[in-house]
């Protein structure tokens, strides 16, 4: 029988579900997005209060302890994490979300393992498996992004076979547990294998592919939460988890499209290590260096300038210096725009957030399809720490490893200034013919320092 309090609880869940959907709908525009988030927060609060009232809770110690500890850590993260560290923070939060789902699954197994029906047990296995592998996978991803673990792919002979073997073993344990619920060993073996599989899944993936991996892990974490909803028979969990899962899935597809690669290729291709020998063939020409004053002169007397930021902007924390230079140029009557490639940076939308932090109005940020036709009429394109996303080989050389990847057509601008730390190749190790073009000039040095010096030089022009 349902009591009054459990009706109240279900009502708060319904309200929460509606508010969540509404808040994501309001995400479609930067002006309404923030208000939308308040709705989601309200929904979350209602659902928590509803649960605390509607379920028979007797021991409050663990709950209050967990809520307090979580709020302190979460609040501290919310205040202190710098925008440049957003990818790591997001990866960590995938790990936390997935871990919560996995732990709830394990707890349910301990408490009600014997009385579960076939369907619930299947959902439980799915939840624990996805939750566990997403936890370790996300931790590895966060480690790579934070540079605790080497960013380049870690590979060894027979890696894909080993992964396949472990995946098979994990799934067999899942099936065994599904058919024979009394086989407790199978459950814990599946859990352990899932933890290991998560690590193995992410270590062979290079940092440049992180946008896809982040989106995929996002999707897994969401689906694990949705599976929790099936186990507990809780609709708001199913809805919120599915929304999260699909959001991650859509982003993964978008990121893959932006690199012209399939998800399997990203996961099992080990991009970024096999490339060096394949691309050396077309290396040639010289890179021309430009002096600061000449570069400043070019910029100051241009009509149209487009900035093209990449991950180098984030590592150098150069977003503020970039905006200062842009404002000086605008003060001189130069039209300044920013071109954002979908996979620039380490997670979807990474560059937009950094530039917004530096107070660049979002109307000045252009997507790839919008800005590409404008390059031919652009006087100077300034590439800041971007490489593959402006590599003309992707368009012109069918043998290139990134052939077919949509790029920002910087090479069509009248002149290009590339800000780069040194002469070395970028992360992917791919040669970039853009750097050898006649219209391209290189400005070596730390991006932040270079931009500040450029700004000074522009003032003296």
């Amino acid at each position, binding site marked *: 029988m349902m009591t009054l309090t459990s009706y109240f609880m279900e009502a708060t869940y319904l309200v*929460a579900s509606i508010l969540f959907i509404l*808040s*994501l709908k309001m*995400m479609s525009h*930067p*002006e309404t*997005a923030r208000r939308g*988030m308040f709705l*989601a*927060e309200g929904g979350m609060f209602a*659902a928590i209060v509803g649960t605390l009232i509607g*379920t028979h*809770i*007797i*021991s*409050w110690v*663990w*709950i209050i*302890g*967990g*809520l307090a500890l*979580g709020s302190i850590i*979460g609040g501290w993260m*919310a205040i202190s994490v710098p925008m440049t560290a957003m990818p790591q923070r*997001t990866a960590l*939060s995938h790990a936390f*979300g997935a*871990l*919560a*789902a996995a732990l*709830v699954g394990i*707890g349910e197994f*301990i*408490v009600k393992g014997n009385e579960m029906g076939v*369907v*619930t047990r299947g959902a439980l296995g799915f939840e624990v498996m996805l939750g566990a592998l997403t936890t370790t996978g996300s931790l590895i991803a966060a480690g790579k992004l934070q540079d605790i673990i080497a960013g380049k792919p870690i590979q060894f002979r027979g890696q894909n076979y080993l992964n396949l073997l472990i995946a098979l073993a994990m799934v067999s344990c899942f099936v065994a547990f599904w058919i024979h619920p009394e086989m407790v060993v199978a459950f814990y073996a599946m859990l352990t294998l899932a933890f290991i599989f998560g690590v193995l899944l992410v270590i062979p993936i290079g940092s440049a592919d992180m946008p896809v991996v982040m989106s995929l892990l*996002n999707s897994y974490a*969401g689906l694990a939460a949705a599976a*929790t909803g*099936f186990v507990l028979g*809780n609709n708001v*969990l199913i809805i*919120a*988890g599915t*929304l*999260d899962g*699909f*959001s991650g899935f*859509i*982003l993964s597809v978008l990121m893959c499209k932006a690199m012209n690669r399939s998800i399997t290729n990203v996961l099992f291709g080990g991009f970024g290590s096999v490339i060096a020998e394949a691309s050396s063939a077309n290396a040639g020409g010289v890179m021309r260096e430009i002096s600061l004053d000449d570069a400043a002169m070019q910029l100051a007397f241009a009509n149209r300038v487009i900035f093209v930021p990449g991950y180098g902007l984030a590592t150098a924390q150069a977003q503020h210096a970039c905006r200062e230079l842009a404002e000086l140029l605008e003060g001189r009557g130069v039209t300044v725009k920013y071109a*954002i490639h979908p996979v620039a940076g380490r*997670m*979807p939308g990474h560059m*937009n*957030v950094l530039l917004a932090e530096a*107070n660049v*109005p*979002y*109307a000045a940020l252009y*997507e790839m399809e919008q800005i590409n036709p404008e390059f031919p009429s652009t006087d100077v394109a300034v590439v800041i720490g971007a490489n593959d996303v402006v590599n003309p080989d992707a368009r012109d050389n069918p043998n290139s490893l990134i052939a077919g990847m949509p790029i920002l057509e910087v090479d069509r601008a009248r002149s290009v200034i590339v800000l780069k730390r040194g002469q070395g190749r970028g992360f992917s190790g791919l040669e970039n013919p853009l750097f050898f073009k006649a219209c391209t000039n290189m400005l070596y040095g730390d991006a932040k320092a270079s931009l500040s010096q450029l700004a000074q030089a522009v003032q003296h022009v």
Partner: protein
Amino acid sequence: MNPVVLIASVYVFALAAFLGYQVISRVPPLLHTPLMSATNAISGISLIGSLVLAGSANYPLGAHILGFVAVTTATINVVGGFGITDRMLKMFRKRGTEAKEVAK
């Protein structure tokens, strides 16, 4: 889980997936980072499952402890996720409007 509940749950899942696709494909790339962080915070709703595990009567101590850890990590996601999303969204400003609250 009885078949009626299962079917209802599958309906909810399918409709949520459809709705999610409709709603999320309209989010511009500009806001993809806040989107990821917001959906993350929202899926922190698994907190309500953790609460039950941490505090229900007649559960063994092991379950309470697992529940405690789950409550903690889910709360980190909810509080941290919403906090950071708001911080990010506050930064997006229109042309011409000097963002005063951002400057501080």
